[in-house]
């Protein structure tokens, strides 16, 4: 043992030295470092949780925004549709009114024309009869009695009416 240099005092000195180091390191290295690491771990976990929360909130807000936007879009679409329908109706009505009016004007014009034609026709007939009477009177003289005269006139008018 002596040749190897092992002595009791040496052993005790080293054991004491080591024990002091153990307590010193435990107090001033392991504890603070572990505390710091744990603190950092919790901080990181908190940070991550906060970030997750913020992300979640942002997600929610986005969804809300989107649904509102969709709603607004739908509303505006129905509105536009309504307006388009109303316009269409109005157009139709105006068109119909115009058609009706045109029709009315047409029929009125027609009737007026027919009436005028009829009037004109009767007038011409009358004048033609008058002329015929006068001509007959001149040719035949005045001897013709009233009864024959009427008969001839009627015959003439009937022929004229056919023409």
């Amino acid at each position, binding site marked *: 043992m002596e040749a190897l*240099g*092992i002595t009791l005092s040496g052993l005790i000195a*080293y*054991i004491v030295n080591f024990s002091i180091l153990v307590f010193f390191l*435990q107090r*001033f290295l392991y504890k603070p470092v572990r505390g*710091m690491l744990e603190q950092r771990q919790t901080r990181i976990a908190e940070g991550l949780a906060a970030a997750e929360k913020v992300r979640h909130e942002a997600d929610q807000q986005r969804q809300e925004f989107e649904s509102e936007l969709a709603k607004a879009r739908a509303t505006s679409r129905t509105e536009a549709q309504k307006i388009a329908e109303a316009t269409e109706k109005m157009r139709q009505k105006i068109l119909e009114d115009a058609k009706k009016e045109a029709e009315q004007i047409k029929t009125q014009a027609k009737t007026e024309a027919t009436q005028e034609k009829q009037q004109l026709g009767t007038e011409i007939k009358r004048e033609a009869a008058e002329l015929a009477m006068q001509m007959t009177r001149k040719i035949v003289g005045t001897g013709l009695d009233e009864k024959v005269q009427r008969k001839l006139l009627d015959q003439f008018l009937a022929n004229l009416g056919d023409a």
Partner: protein
Amino acid sequence: MKKETILKVIMWITIALIIMIGGTILWPTDRGAIVVAAEPIFGPLTNALFTSFLLTLVIMALTLWVSNNLKESPGHFQNLVEVMFEFLEGMVNDTAPKKWAATFFPIVATIFIYLLFTNWFSLFTPMWASFGLICSTERGIPIEHVTFFKGSGATVPVCEHGAKAEAHAKESFPEAETKVMVVPIFRAPSSDLNLTVALALIAVVLTQFFGIQEKGLGYFKNFLRFDSFAKQGPLMGFIDFAVGLLEGLSEFTKIISFSFRLFGNIFAGEVILIIISSLVSFLLVVVFLGFEVFVGFIQAFIFFILTLIFFSMATQHHGEEQH
């Protein structure tokens, strides 16, 4: 890694090597003898113990510096400390029973840190070993090779463990041819058997202590096995009893294996460094320095992990009753 960082690291390594190698060249190691036992320098204080105290102070100073500068966002050094801390703690938590991890950690982690410093101190041996006190002896270096910082060749004391040599020297050698041996002031503590045996004792004694704390007197059932006589007959019972005794014996041999493994590795490393640096130019010494860096780390780690495993084995319930 950034290019700048790599350059910085290379620069520091180069500076360290220049210091080490420059020391080797400027103060060549003319050691007369390689001594297994740590040499006393001031009374009972040996150079290894002295170095151990110094290194302890260095570790404490570093510790205080680190713990006073702990930051949320760590710098380079704090990062290193944290990586080491988490590595050791992870190892302890994986190996030890949950209940005991917190108790084991400071002891085994301190073993690792302390041994890392003391082992790596042996890298400086080629330089530090040539600083020291001298004493005259019959087989040493010629006194002309010694540069005196204090005192002179006329006042060289006689080496203590060379009482016979002294008588011999007085008769045969005139004053001018006095041969001296340098007793270095610094010596890597892990190359002192006192340290390695002390640590081994701590490891083994604490192993028994933790075992008894965990299992009570039942802990000794592992060494004194009588149960098998009744269960498996006299032959198996006897074998099991002998195995138990061997287990008990192995607790004592652990002290020897622990201490001599560390001592042998570090001491041999020192001897290699001394011999190589006195034989060849520095390039080859660099190779051995690198090798010793590796050995120093590995030996510290082995001591750490073995202590941890023995602690864990003593406190774990293997279910001995079941087989």
